[in-house]
């Protein structure tokens, strides 16, 4: 007997949500939950309370209580925590120190490191799992995996029939450039093994999950991310485009995103063409290094930097660019490529990405193949036919994107879970 969508009640564990997001994960959670609720799925979304005001990544400040409000079919539950998805444990210690400095908060509120924070988050999860009503547990990436496992145990104690779904948006192998932190890896692995179903955002990530985590491929379902297309009608003119060709990098300045590869590509292009400017948007632990390196490579006057941008300014940055380049060394999906296309900017993307599996109207190269990357970028800049093709066909393609598709794929998995197969 098949379950009706209206009867699906998802207890969902996430750790960031726009505007308190520092990357694509929050955007994906927002898109997916919107898609799911459009189909009538009821979601209880558990979120650590982010102290957004303290982090410059967060431009807008929302009061915490708004998370406890019921917004349509999604109920937000705030759990006190300063978890951020892209923090290493070293950075986390700094964050705690900083919070004290700014707020005079006591250290024992937050626990002494990232991992005790994970335990604290799961303790809250336990409480929520004991009291709320749900029949599917869906958790996003490793920090919430222990919460998912503990929630399922609580459900069993209550005699509730549930399934645990772990959704892999990124693995430790992606984030660290292949040198994983053992503790994080262990949590990921335990989470995946406890899961009844695993969702990965790409075939690329499915391969990593089966290859590095010893998971049966049959248990892994690929659900590609998407984007809800909407025409944003800004017709702002960017004068810089009249003078120069512009190439954009937009992402965290961390090893995963390959900002150093982008610089090498920029250097190569500059050798061939003096009239290209490179815009790098984002911040991260490599920011300072990258700025200095641009100068060291002799292209210091050609690379223009901006701190992390939010909201409308992200769209402006895409529109300022003649081409968007995703130079990631390992990108599970890469939603920015879709955002760029939505903003009428053609994309050249790393082959080591999930989005390259589904996009037709883009150019692809290995992230390490600097010469080929440079060639393809120059082709987009100077070959009007190619450019128009990518723009027009790309726009047609991107218009068809919607979060309804991944939402429906998730619902199929929920239904199978509820049917117990």
């Amino acid at each position, binding site marked *: 007997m098949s379950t009706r969508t209206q009867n699906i009640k998802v207890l969902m564990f996430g750790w960031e949500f726009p505007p308190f997001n520092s990357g694509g994960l929050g955007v994906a959670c927002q898109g997916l939950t919107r898609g799911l609720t459009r189909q009538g799925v009821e979601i209880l979304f558990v979120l650590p309370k982010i102290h957004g005001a303290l982090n*410059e990544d967060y431009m807008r400040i929302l009061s915490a209580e708004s998370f406890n409000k019921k917004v349509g079919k999604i109920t937000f539950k705030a759990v006190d925590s300063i978890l951020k998805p892209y923090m290493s444990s070293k*950075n986390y210690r*700094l*964050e705690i*120190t*900083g919070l004290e400095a700014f707020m005079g908060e006591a250290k024992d509120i937050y626990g002494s490191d990232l991992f005790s924070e994970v335990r604290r988050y799961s303790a809250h999860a336990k409480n929520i799992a004991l009291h709320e009503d749900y029949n599917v547990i869906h958790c996003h990436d490793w920090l919430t995996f222990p919460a998912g496992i503990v929630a399922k145990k609580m459900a069993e104690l209550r005699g509730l029939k549930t399934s645990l779904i772990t959704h892999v948006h990124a693995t430790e192998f992606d984030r660290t450039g292949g040198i994983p932190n053992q503790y994080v890896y262990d949590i990921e692995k335990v989470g995946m093994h406890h899961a009844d179903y695993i969702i990965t955002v790409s075939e690329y990530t499915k391969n990593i999950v089966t290859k590095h985590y010893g998971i049966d491929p049959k248990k892994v379902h690929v659900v590609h991310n998407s984007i809800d297309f909407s025409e944003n009608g800004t017709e702002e003119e*960017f*004068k*810089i485009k009249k*003078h120069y060709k512009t190439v954009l990098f937009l992402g965290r*300045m961390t090893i995963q995103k390959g900002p150093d590869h982008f610089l090498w590509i920029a250097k190569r292009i500059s050798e061939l063409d003096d009239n290209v*400017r490179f*815009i790098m*948007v984002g*911040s*991260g*632990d490599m*920011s*300072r290094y990258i*700025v*200095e390196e641009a*100068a*060291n490579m*002799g292209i*210091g*006057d050609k*690379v*223009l*930097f*901006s*701190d*992390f941008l939010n909201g409308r*300014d992200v769209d*402006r*940055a895409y529109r*300022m660019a003649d081409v968007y380049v995703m130079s990631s060394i390992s990108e599970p999906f890469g939603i920015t490529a879709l955002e760029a296309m939505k903003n009428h900017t053609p994309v050249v993307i790393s082959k080591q990405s999930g989005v390259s599996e589904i996009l037709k109207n883009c150019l692809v190269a290995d992230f390490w193949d600097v010469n080929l990357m440079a060639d393809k970028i120059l082709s987009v800049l100077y070959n009007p036919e190619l450019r128009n093709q990518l723009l027009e066909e790309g726009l047609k393609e991107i218009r068809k994107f919607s979060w309804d598709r991944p939402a429906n794929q998730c619902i199929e998995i929920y239904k199978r879970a509820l049917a117990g197969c």
Partner: protein
Amino acid sequence: MVSVCFYFQVHQPYRLKKYSIFEIGNGGKYFDEEKNREILNKVSGKCYLPANNLILDLIHETDGRFKVAYSLTGIILEQFEEHRPDVLESFQRLVDTGCVELLDETYHHTLAALYSEKEFKEQVKLHRKKIRQLFGYKPKIFRNTELVYNNRIAYLAEQMGYAGVLAEGADYILGWRSPNFVYRAKMAKDIRLLLKNYRLSDDIAFRFSQRGWEGWPLTADKFAAWVNAVNGNGNVVNLFMDYETIGEHQWEDTGIFEFLRYLPREILRNPDNDFKTPSEVVEAYEPVAEIDMRQVVSWADIERDLSAWLGNQMQRTSISKLYELEDKIEKTGDQKLIDDWRRLQTTDHFYYMCTKWFNDGDVHKYFNAYDRPHDSFIAFTNVLTDLRMRLNEKSMSA
């Protein structure tokens, strides 16, 4: 006979805004007017006005035996004219006493001498013109930005008609020789070289308020005794420093004003001592030897070289890309464009990009994506991109 020769540097840059990528193409408005005015007002209140008043009093008290020299950059004079005419008048009153000498330098406080001698001469001419316009005065002595000096600077200064030039009395140039004499300069015919006595200058400029320093607290009679000790083995003690030392770098509560108030009478208590301005020193004392400075020396940091402005690649890229534009910029004849270009040459912009003292373990690294030196470089690069675009437009329409 020992002559004490005070020279104060008076300068404030036009600081840049944090110019974002979205402002590129807006064409102009590079400078943070509000912040620059704020700082000018603050320093005027803490230093320029009270220090000028004190020095005017001291000149009257000593019947003109106390004398000082100033070098005011063209861009601080502009800022006075626009926002603080009262401070400008106060300097004019000082110059009117006849006991205050003004020196010439680059109008925009730049390192042009190292990049374009043509531009350098142009900027010195502009400064000369400004000083004549505001003070009715023609300087006889030249001092280059940040005391940046080598043989070539002496040669250029002599060509431009100056009788003397100031430089840092750096140990690695002087060796066993003393800064307390007048010297000739290698490669120049007759121009005289005045060397900063950095020990005594820095006792006031840097160590005055350091409680851990053995000389603390520095009193006027103690300092006068150190000057007296030069008697018999030197002619002149050159005390060169930023004017902001008085009241801004050393705050009023350190006692810096009291120190200065009593210093002239303590120095003059010894009948063998007097105060002389740089041009009087050049007149009074014959040079004892020739100094050969091939490498570039400055008064900055312990290195006394160019590393404060040109120590890393961010700094070198910025400055060389800026000077690359010289010919094209001049050809446009567009005064606004030329002015902006020159204001960008001010050494302070490159000083802000200095990473010499940067501690890599700094916690701030995490909170700010880019720390100050990198931010300065980013803003500068964005501005430079905008400037180039304006230049392109001019060249295209021409």
